[in-house]
């Protein structure tokens, strides 16, 4: 069974499959903004030092440049404030640097990538979302809407989906052959839930406290293991043998 339903975006594709994409919540979005903001901050720190160096003209060769420098400074501040977001979202498939780091992406409400207009709308609306300070309006809007959208997203018809890093190796990892085990090929096949349960236990087992590890292993063996008590006792002698058995059991049906 699934636990509490997480917000998601349902997309019906022309291939007649329903996609369910997980939506990025307020935490992801704030973190992504922090990454972007600190990136821009450090960029301007460096730019400011270079600029003051040019203006103070320590070397006396940049006199002609300082006017140009001032213009660039003004235009640059404007560009980082307004253009940075839209340009990166349009050219990098809905991701700014911060969004890429956090693994989130802007899409339209039908799941397709954003275009210039949508991206421009949602980023120009930062002017209102920022009010009265530090994106307070945006946070309220994200908390109140079902799909965690800020005001700019509502006007643009966009939202942010999350990309998870899912490791499929655990399904196909080769069984450890250190210990020869009885292959109970006659056992009943495992249901997908059992497989998922055993695999998530196996991937977490090295980090568990020894007694918890033993106890959980025993309960899983009880659930999927051999029926006769003798074989079960043989499996349960140590944590290693328990996990080796479980791994073999999951891989058994290959």
């Amino acid at each position: 069974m699934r636990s509490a339903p997480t917000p998601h975006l349902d997309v019906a594709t022309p291939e007649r499959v329903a996609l369910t994409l997980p939506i990025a919540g307020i935490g992801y979005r704030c973190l992504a903004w922090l990454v972007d903001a600190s990136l821009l901050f450090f960029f301007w720190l460096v730019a400011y030092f270079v600029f003051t160096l040019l203006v103070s003209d320590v070397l006396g060769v940049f006199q002609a440049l300082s006017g140009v420098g001032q213009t660039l400074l003004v235009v640059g501040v404007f560009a980082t404030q307004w253009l940075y977001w839209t340009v990166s979202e349009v050219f990098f498939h809905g991701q700014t640097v911060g969004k890429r780091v956090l693994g989130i992406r802007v899409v339209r409400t039908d799941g397709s990538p954003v275009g210039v207009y949508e991206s421009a709308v949602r980023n120009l609306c930062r002017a209102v979302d920022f009010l009265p300070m530090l994106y307070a309006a945006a946070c309220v809007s994200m908390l109140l809407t079902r799909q965690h959208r800020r005001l700019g997203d509502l006007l643009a018809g966009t939202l942010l989906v999350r990309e998870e890093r899912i490791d499929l190796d655990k399904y196909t990892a080769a069984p450890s052959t250190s210990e020869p085990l009885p292959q109970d090929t006659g056992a009943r096949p495992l249901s997908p839930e059992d497989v998922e349960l055993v695999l998530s236990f196996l991937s977490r087992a090295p980090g568990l406290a020894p007694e918890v590890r033993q106890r959980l292993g025993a309960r899983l063996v009880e659930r999927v293991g051999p029926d006769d008590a003798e074989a079960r006792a043989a499996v349960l002698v140590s944590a290693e043998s328990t996990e080796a058995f479980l791994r073999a059991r999951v891989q058994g049906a290959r």
Partner: protein
Amino acid sequence: MATPLPAYVAQRRTDWDALQALLAKQRSGTLKLGELRTLDTLYRRASADLAHAQTFYAGTDVHRFLNQLCGQAYASIYQPPRERWPAMRDFFRREFPATLRRERGFVGASAVLFILGILLGALVVLWEPRGAELLVPAGVRHYVAQGRMWTDDILSVAPPNSVASGIATNNLTVTIVTFALGLTGGLGTLFLLVNNGVHIGAISALCAREGMLGGLLDFIAAHGPVELSILVIAGGAGLMVGQALIDPGELPRGQALAVRGREAVKLVLGCAPFLALIGVVEGYVSPGDMFPTWLKAGLGLVLGALFWAYLLRAGRTEAEATGAPADSAS
């Protein structure tokens, strides 16, 4: 009973990995034409796998993985047409002016509000001279009391290019805020329009009473017509958003907002380059007395006329020329 999960993954995984590799290639733009067909096939297979996983392995990591994989593939296969240079040319040639003409009701309402603000500010200051203390910024009053234009000093503190860039970015920010405040149900936009109008009206009236109207007109003649037009257009965009929020019509409010927001932002994006250009005029031509007043006024009128001629004529279709189309917004 379906195949056990590990066996299923082992059997299908090569296809999924291949699809992921192709998607990465597509994203970096190095996909070859021949591989496109493979991408399509693999996407269809992954979709079928997803349907299979939904039925037999719901809630597992494989299900989530396939969901995400198909989501990414879906996004890269069903892309909207690339909006690049040809689209941009088409936007300025046809779409921006056409949008403005279609939404002329909102731009007109915005202009009316702005002019009402000007009249209000001017009348208040003309009737009650002390109203200037309330409506005109202290710095400006200080200059006017000395009988000088506050704009005379602009060029003595900074070179024209930095003045121009400063003014242009400042105006762009005002335009953006005017549009974005439409999200307050149009109230913010309304306030900004009237407020700007009152300021301009009050300052003009103050200058007129002190006999400095000539100096003020000398300053704003060159850039005023275009700049104020753009402010009014941005106000129209903000009002469009406000209207969609208050009265979404037959669509659900969320959809109406998305549709109207997309239209409204075209007005803002279209105005941006003109605002940047007029910033150059305001930085180089308007301040000081390098150019005579008649030249500034002439330039302002010509620029304003050209701007509006472009807005009203560019990309006009036959239907528009003969009569208003049926779906035009009032």
